């Protein structure tokens, strides 16, 4: 399906940019007329993925995080969050609820579990030493059909 809109964003992996990233994605999707709950869901999922790039991917070294977001005519939003950091050895294990490699930082190990409950689909592609890309798919309820295709 052809996308109706797209944006690309890159920023330094500083924790102060976590709020910038989720707010920017939320602003981008306002054209789809989302509900407050939908905005909160997407902000939370994006915050999880971006925080993972900063905390795990780059292990607090300052590099670049990349986001691409696209919208589709059926009110789907697809958001890719990418780092060129350490990568994940065992993706399946990493996605298990409560699994964390960083308990001393008070991580709960619930980031992926949250992304999965907040989105329709979560895809993770990762190579050790190369980096990680998380793709979030979320369909928004169709409201105000007519102006959704500008």
């Amino acid at each position, binding site marked *: 399906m052809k996308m109706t809109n797209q944006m690309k964003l890159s920023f330094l992996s500083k*924790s*102060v940019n*976590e*709020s910038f990233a*989720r707010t920017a994605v939320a602003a981008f999707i306002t054209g789809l007329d989302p509900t407050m*709950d939908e905005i*909160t869901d997407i*902000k*939370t999922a994006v*915050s*999880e993925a971006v*925080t993972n790039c*900063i*905390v795990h991917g780059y292990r607090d070294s300052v590099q670049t995080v990349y986001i691409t977001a696209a919208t589709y005519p059926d009110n789907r939003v697809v958001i890719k969050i990418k780092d060129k950091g350490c990568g994940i050895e065992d993706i399946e294990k990493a996605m298990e*609820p409560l699994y964390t490699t960083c308990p001393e*930082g*008070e*991580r*709960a190990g*619930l*980031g992926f*579990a*949250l992304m999965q*409950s*907040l989105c329709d689909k979560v895809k993770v592609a990762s190579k050790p030493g190369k980096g990680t890309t998380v793709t979030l798919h979320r369909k928004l309820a169709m409201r105000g059909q007519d102006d959704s295709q500008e």
Partner: protein
Amino acid sequence: MPVRVYLADEIMTAHLLGDIDHHSSREIREEIDERAGRAHPSRLVMDFRDVTFMDSSGIGLVMGRYALMQELEGELVVENMPEHIKRVMKLAGLDRLANMESGRTRR
């Protein structure tokens, strides 16, 4: 500062403000732990009424303060969670991990 900490008798209240994420939770954690470590309150109340956003970092924050209050032999109470934050807690299954009935986590 994303938190204001008050002490009255043996009860310490942490009034949380704004967005709780990985960035802000560090400062919140340090402030609460420093104050609680000195005052040894019998109860720590985390007041969420003015929290505008929370991701899994907030869950780590609550779980960590729960452990802290166990160490200090006190109790943790989580209060005034807005609906959207309760949702994150539930989606993350925290209501099953900790005893959080009607917004209270007791030792």
